[in-house]
């Protein structure tokens, strides 16, 4: 097979996975939220558990009118969901699902991820600015402050792992853990920092100031509807998956398992969805912080902690 056919097949697989995973996560979130809140969540379409609700929702999203505010900056507004969505899809390139199940085993995998992830902010900001809506603008400003200040501890937290494993390649990190056990043993502190920063990166409660529905109605995507809104939604949920997968890869042994190829992929997915569940669970249990508290936490707490972790890891490596 020529290489470009393979590439197209891979892209199609990733897109299909994004679609299915996004729908599943939206359903799972609603279901978990329902159960936590003494309700049962979606239950009408596709009884008993309302699984087909998502297909109904998807159809609804596709068929809804795409309303553009008259005062919006047309092209910026139009491109924002695309810019937000693309880096999320690109991140799949280096996620190791199994021993050989990876888009491309780059030797700069983690740097690639960090570079791609920082793109998402551009989409958020375009959406907020382009909508010409004050709520959106406030949301975008918050997003700017929040995502930049939390990307730093997020990346610093991974440095400990890189120091231990001695590689930037995601596949290499997993292989190291196959040989030496999970990184979480020595990198617990890094994981805590990583997890908190990840929640902030993902704009999830308690750090969902960017969306903050009780303050900013819907933050940066207030003005979006129909499929454009759907793209934000999908990108967001896919992002949750990507980040959780990254956490699994870095700290929880990735696909490492004794059950062969299929078993590895399954183990990887189970671990990832466990982290996703944790994120959902946290979302429905805590209130939201305020912008100044968010900044304080990021700069005065997480950043020193992640730096300390680097020193600590260095000491471990010395001994």
């Amino acid at each position, binding site marked *: 097979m020529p290489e470009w056919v393979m590439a197209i097949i891979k892209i199609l697989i990733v897109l299909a996975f994004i679609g299915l995973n996004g729908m599943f996560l939206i359903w799972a979130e609603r279901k978990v939220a329902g159960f936590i809140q*003494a309700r049962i969540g979606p239950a009408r379409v596709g009884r008993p558990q309302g699984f087909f609700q998502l297909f109904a929702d998807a159809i609804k999203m596709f068929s809804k009118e795409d309303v553009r505010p008259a005062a919006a900056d047309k092209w910026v507004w139009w491109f924002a969901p695309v810019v937000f969505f693309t880096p999320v899809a690109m991140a799949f390139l280096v996620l190791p699902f199994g021993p050989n199940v990876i888009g491309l085993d780059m030797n700069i995998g983690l740097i690639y991820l960090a570079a791609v992830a920082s793109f998402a902010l551009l989409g958020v900001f375009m959406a907020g600015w382009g909508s010409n809506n004050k709520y959106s603008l406030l949301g975008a400003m918050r997003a700017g402050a929040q995502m930049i200040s939390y990307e730093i501890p997020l990346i610093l937290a991974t440095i400990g792992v890189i120091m231990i494993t001695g590689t930037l390649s995601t596949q290499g990190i997993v292989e190291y853990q196959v040989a030496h056990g999970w990184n979480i043993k020595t990198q617990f502190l890094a994981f805590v920092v990583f997890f908190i920063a990840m929640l902030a990166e993902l704009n999830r409660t308690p750090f969902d100031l960017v969306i903050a529905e009780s303050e900013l109605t819907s933050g940066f995507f207030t003005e979006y509807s129909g499929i454009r809104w759907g793209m934000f939604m999908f990108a967001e949920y896919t992002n949750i998956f990507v980040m959780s997968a990254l956490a699994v890869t870095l700290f929880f042994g990735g696909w490492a398992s004794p059950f062969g190829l299929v078993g590895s992929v399954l183990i990887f997915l189970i671990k990832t969805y466990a982290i996703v569940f944790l994120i959902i669970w946290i979302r429905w*249990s805590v209130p939201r912080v305020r912008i100044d508290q968010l900044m304080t936490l990021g700069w005065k707490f997480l950043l020193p902690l992640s730096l300390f972790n680097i020193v600590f890891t260095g000491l471990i490596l010395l001994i």
Partner: protein
Amino acid sequence: MLGGVLGNVYNATKSLIKGHLVTLKELRTPKITVHYPDERLELPLGSRGMPALKVNQDTGLLNCTACGVCARECPVDAIEVEAVVGEKGRKKRYPAIYNLDMTHCMQCNLCVEACPFDALEMSDAFEISRYDLDDLIFDKEQLAEIWKTHKAVRITGGEKL
């Protein structure tokens, strides 16, 4: 100072975990959702839906004598009564027209309490949505029908349920 910070972190973590345990516990508790059209809650006796005209079990006629007290007592003028006068063959006066406008009615129970002839009762019929506003004006046959098909009670002046 470091000790204080660590203590704070410890306390915060502890209470966060406690909070999460509450939500985790709730995952398993029975849900209170009722799938309304399929499942229904039992309405308690005396639940106020809409007023209905009582039908005398023996004669099958309405108890109402078209005295108009209820119409006067209604704060929002939802009731319209007109009596039949001078008709032969019947001892009692009865209403020629008895219309209840459910677009106005606020189900307050005042008309039921005011009726001196035990002719009006509060039924628990609450599913009265219609596609047309005009359909919400109930005439006397419909009101009697509602009385027959629903639980209805008359509670006045400090009685016990």
